[in-house]
């Protein structure tokens, strides 16, 4: 596919893009109750109940090691689809849906040496005004993290969450 659609969102002034195929929808953070999960990684803000489904919330600011990593009530949740389950990415704001051709995306292996923090960056798209970091959402969860997070979801059903309130 040489001309894919991307969801563009902003996180602490930087724009990121995720291929629309991996996005399920967008919600407002303030519309949800966040349930804390004990013993979870620090970048897991908690879990939410989205139309009957348990969704873990990723604090991308923490995941990306940003200086300012607190969530705000203006934040939005981008529901991404990783393999067979959905995760919620907390972002400042989803701003656009754009078409970006493959030629406009610079692969990261030319820009970065392989390190653990940049593996989920699949490339940099240059538009007229911005540099957009294209995320490989499947790599946002490392194999180890998947091992941590997946049982978290599978181990608890909705009833169990509701009981906790």
């Amino acid at each position, binding site marked *: 596919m040489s001309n894919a659609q991307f*969801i563009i969102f902003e996180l602490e002034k930087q724009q990121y893009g995720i291929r*629309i*195929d991996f996005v399920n*929808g967008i919600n*407002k953070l303030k519309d949800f109750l966040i349930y804390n999960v004990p013993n979870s990684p620090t970048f897991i803000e908690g879990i939410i109940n989205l139309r009957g489904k348990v969704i873990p919330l990723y604090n991308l600011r923490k995941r990306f090691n940003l200086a300012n990593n607190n969530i705000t009530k203006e934040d939005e949740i981008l529901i991404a689809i990783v393999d067979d389950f959905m995760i919620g990415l907390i972002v400042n704001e*989803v701003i656009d*849906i754009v078409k970006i051709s493959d030629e406009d995306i610079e692969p990261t292996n030319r820009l970065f040496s392989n390190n653990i923090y940049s593996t989920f960056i699949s490339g940099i798209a240059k538009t007229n005004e911005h540099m957009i970091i294209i995320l490989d959402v499947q790599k946002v969860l490392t194999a180890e993290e998947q091992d941590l997070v997946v049982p978290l979801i599978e181990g608890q059903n909705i009833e169990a969450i509701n009981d906790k309130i």
Partner: protein
Amino acid sequence: MSNEKTTMNLTNIKLQDVIDIDFLQKFQDDFATAIGLASVTVDTNGIPVTNPSRYTRFCNYVHSTKIGDNRCAESHRKGGEEAARLGKPVTYECHAGLIDFAAPIMLEGQLIGTILGGQVLENFQNEDKYKQIASEINVDEAAFVSAAKEIRLMSNEEILAAAEVLYFVANSMAKNWYHQRKLADATDTLNESLNQIAATMEQLAASAQEVNNSQKMLNAEINNVNTMSEQISEVLDFIKEIADETRMLGLNAAIEAARAGTAGLGFGVVAEEIRKLSSESKQTVAKIRSFVDKIQASIKNTVKIGDTTISATEEQSAAVQEMTASIEEISSLSESLNELAHSK
């Protein structure tokens, strides 16, 4: 205006206006008796304003005929004119050969009357002169000569000194009256001006009060506008919320359309239009909000200026009140002065 009033018009001033005739009569009588010479005071037309004091029998004879009376009047007129011309008492020989004096009563250089007197002689000359006059004025010669012999003898120096006394007293009275009259006119003007000032002050106080009231009403109205702009802000929050919901709806619709592949293409176009609309609404809200902010800043400033106006008019009112009190004090002083000036 004050200059016109302090310089009085003296052309129609009568002797009776200026001098207390009763007092002058008494003084003239007493003086005539003391010194032993006759005296009468006449106005500018030669008409007596006092009764003759101590007229001699000789002169009564002269005045008993029409021709004698006329000659006396002519003689008095001439003497009076001479005295007025010189501005001081003069002595002269009358048509019947007696020594008379004329003392002008002047006010600011203008003649208002004359004190005439004398009916004395420096020395008795001869009977023929008086017989001649008696025949001219148609009176009995023998009786006239006998009356002439009764005429008191007095040196010119003595006559002039007596005239000076009458001149001094009458002119002092005139001058005194004139000063009092000027004072009265000045206090009248003062009173009038003070009344005008007081009236103006009242108007000033009233208008200051009016400005104050208007400004207060204006401030209240501005506060209404402020409340309304706050309500607009609330509505804007609501509109922004709707625009935001619309944006989310558009985005989610676009995602669904993309996921539907070619089947979702048409729907994708609609979704994009919805996003555009919501974005425009959001921008419009921002614009309106910036206008509302400007309005509120302007309102704040207006209220501040209004408060300054209110405090300024309140100060003005206080100052006017103080001034009114001062004017009242001056007015009562001026009234006292006026009473004093108008008392005889």
